[in-house]
């Protein structure tokens, strides 16, 4: 009642018991099927076949040994003449109930030793099989209990739990007890053999027998092989044959089913199959002819061990070879990784390199600004020093660029510039300083003017020369004559009196004066144009300050345009941009 009156807190799913049981059963089933498939050799590789061959030979050897042991035991108890029939009886039980002869022989041997009677032993073995199938006990313990009971010791029989009371065990004879047990457990072994598990067991027995038969055949086959290549070939052939045989077995299954439908044909005989049957029979005869007379012997096993060692050695060599190749590949991969790392570092270095350029330009701009604020010689010297260093750095960068571009001329020029800058820096560092040098350095920071206070006199003189050359008058020259423009000197219209004159005369005068002024203006424009042409033709007009050279080579026009734009922007920011013509 109180079962539901509870509050569960933080539950955990641990799975259902029924699910676990089902999973376990499925696992068991799949393991059995896998084991059977493995035993039948449906999926073998070369190594697996060799291993299977070894097991098969071992199984064949053990089977032969068990047969001999049973025969010896029967001989010792006086049942030697029944050895062959006993072996046939065991084989029959094996195929009927799906129990391996490895278990049946010891069980029969135990009973035969106790009873010393073939018929009684077989009766008790049948009973043991029924009891074992019904109770789940192993066959060995049941036969042991029965054999002891046969000899008068009922304790083990009472412990089997077969439903016989102690009173019955004491009162009844062994025959009565076994008769009662036969009635109780009648048909148990047969029923168990007819289940699915029983069918699997039967197949397992058939596979084990096949394994033993193959093992015997292998011993004979290996005697004729020379080296490991032969084993390889044999393994491959066996693999092919195994696959082929599996298909044949399936085909035989179908064929047997079909034959059942034909009147007068009870079972399959290979020789009944047209053509192929003849070939199979031929191989069968060939195999029988080559079958060793002495069965399994030590020589065959030793030969197999030798071949296996060779095979293993060969595999080891292959593995070593593969490992070496893997090492090489690993080494190459490591080298590549190192190169990638180096490239990454270089690319980072390039970024730094660019940063150097940027910082250098900024520092130079800063020095130019400081120059304007300098008030004494010490500051000028400091600025000159810093500027020289920056110039050296700039030259280094330019040289690196030149080296990267592999342009010999550029490299030579950059080297020369670097040497010059280093020379200046060396002079500054050594305090071997001349004022002229400082001035030169500082002048490099100043914007280049076309005409300034320094060259004003020279410019005026030059302009004067230009004027004279073009026939113009010099400043403060004669008041007579004709100017270069063709206008007479002091040629002007005399003013008229505005009082007492007619309005028409005044208007006429004004028109004339305007026409004359316009004529003078035109002449002045012509003179300016001529002056400009003369200036451009002079050394001032052709100075480098008006020409921007962009060393971009042949490339992207946009890149060139951006470079020009950058130069002009920098100049505008520095305040050194005077004017530039737009196309």
């Amino acid at each position, binding site marked *: 009642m109180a079962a539901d*009156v509870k*509050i569960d807190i933080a*539950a*955990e799913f*641990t799975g259902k018991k029924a699910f676990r049981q089902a999973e376990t059963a499925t696992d068991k089933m799949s393991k059995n099927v896998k084991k059977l498939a493995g035993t039948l050799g449906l999926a073998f590789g070369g190594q697996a076949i060799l291993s299977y061959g070894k097991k098969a030979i071992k199984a064949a050897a053990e089977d032969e040994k068990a047969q001999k042991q049973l025969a010896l035991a029967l001989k010792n108890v006086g049942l030697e003449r029944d050895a062959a029939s006993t072996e046939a009886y065991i084989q029959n039980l094996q195929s009927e109930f799906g129990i391996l002869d490895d278990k049946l022989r010891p069980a029969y041997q135990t009973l035969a030793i106790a009873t010393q009677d073939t018929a009684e032993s077989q009766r008790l073995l049948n009973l043991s099989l029924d009891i074992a199938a019904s109770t789940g006990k192993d066959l060995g313990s049941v036969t042991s209990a029965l054999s002891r009971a046969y000899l008068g010791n009922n304790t083990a029989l009472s412990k089997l739990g077969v439903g016989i009371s102690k009173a019955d065990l004491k009162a009844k004879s062994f025959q009565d007890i076994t008769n009662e047990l036969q009635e109780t457990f009648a048909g148990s072994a047969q029923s168990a053999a007819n289940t699915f598990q029983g069918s699997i067991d039967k197949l397992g027995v058939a596979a084990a027998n096949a394994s033993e038969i193959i093992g015997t055949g292998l011993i004979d086959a290996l005697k004729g092989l020379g080296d490991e290549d032969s084993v390889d070939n044999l393994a491959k052939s066996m693999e092919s044959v195994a696959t082929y045989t599996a298909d044949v077995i399936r085909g035989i299954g179908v064929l047997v089913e079909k034959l059942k439908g034909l009147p007068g044909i009870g079972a399959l005989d290979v020789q009944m199959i047209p053509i192929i049957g003849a070939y199979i029979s031929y191989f069968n005869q060939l195999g029988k002819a080559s079958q060793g007379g002495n069965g399994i012997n030590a020589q065959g096993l030793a030969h197999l061990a030798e071949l296996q060692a060779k095979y293993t050695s060969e595999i080891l060599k292959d593995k070593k070879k593969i490992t070496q190749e893997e090492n090489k590949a690993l080494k190459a991969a490591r080298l590549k990784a190192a190169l990638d790392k180096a490239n990454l570092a270089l690319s980072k270095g390039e970024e730094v390199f660019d940063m150097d350029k940027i910082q250098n330009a900024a520092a130079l701009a800063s020095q130019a600004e400081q120059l304007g604020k300098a008030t004494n010689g010490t500051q000028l010297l400091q600025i000159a020093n810093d500027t020289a260093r920056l110039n050296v750095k700039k030259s280094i960068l330019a040289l690196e660029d030149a080296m990267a571009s592999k342009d010999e001329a550029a490299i030579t020029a950059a080297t020369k510039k670097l040497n010059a800058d280093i020379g200046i820096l060396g002079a500054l560092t050594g305090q071997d300083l001349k004022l002229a040098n400082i001035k030169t350095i500082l002048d490099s920071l100043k914007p280049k003017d076309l005409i300034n206070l320094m060259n004003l006199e020279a410019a005026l003189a030059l302009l004067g020369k230009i004027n004279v050359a073009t026939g113009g008058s010099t400043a403060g020259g004669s008041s007579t004559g004709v100017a270069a423009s063709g206008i007479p000197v002091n040629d002007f219209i005399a003013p008229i009196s505005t009082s007492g004159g007619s309005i028409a005369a005044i208007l006429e005068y004004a028109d004339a004066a305007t026409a004359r002024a316009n004529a003078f203006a035109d002449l002045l424009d012509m003179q300016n144009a001529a002056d400009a042409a003369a200036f451009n033709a002079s050394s001032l007009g052709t100075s480098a300050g008006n020409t921007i050279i962009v060393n971009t080579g042949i490339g992207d026009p946009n890149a060139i345009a951006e470079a020009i734009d950058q130069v002009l922007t920098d100049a505008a920011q520095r305040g050194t941009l005077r004017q530039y013509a737009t196309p």
Partner: protein
Amino acid sequence: MPTEVKGAIELRKALRQFTPDLAKETQKEIAAILKPITAKARGFIPSSTPLSGWAKSNNGTWGNRTWSSSEAKRGVGYKTSPSKPNRSGFRALARIVNASPSGSIYETAGRLNPQGRPQAPLAEVVAPGHSNFGKMIRSGSKGESVSNNPNAGQQFIDAMNRTSLIVNAYQRQEGQRGRASRKMKGRAIFRAWAEDQGKANAAVIKAIEDSKVKFEQRVKGK
């Protein structure tokens, strides 16, 4: 519907095996969380019998279900050890229980049939050796009342409801699918659980999580 936690059972085993002190500490923490709820639930158990006749001892069907306030209060408790798996395969890591017969009845009366069970029909006893052979008696299934009073169930439940109404402590989890649980209703432990509003549940899970962290620290520390 308890919150599902993964690995707590294994964690508890590991705690008990490698850090017994930490295992005990965790149990104590969980107990400390659940104790106030059980105390409150005990407070909801009436000190006097809800129906005057229920407390009278008798030997009939209700012989072992006689009302006892002290027994009902004692029956309310908590467990901090994992339960056995239920039919769905879940194991509760901790739980609050109302274990006594009378306490369980008080807890759940009217939970399924708020108006009491329907009256079972009258049927003649035809078994010759039966003590009531030839008589008309009420014979029904578990869901039917065999009382001759058709309102017996209703009166019983009303008497319970006068002391405390049934409270639904079901808390639907976020994104939870399926039908809501109908077994999270009651007058004592479920009421106390509902009033706690899930704080204890969260605290228990946190205590388990904390123990996991402590355990990992201890193990790494070693």
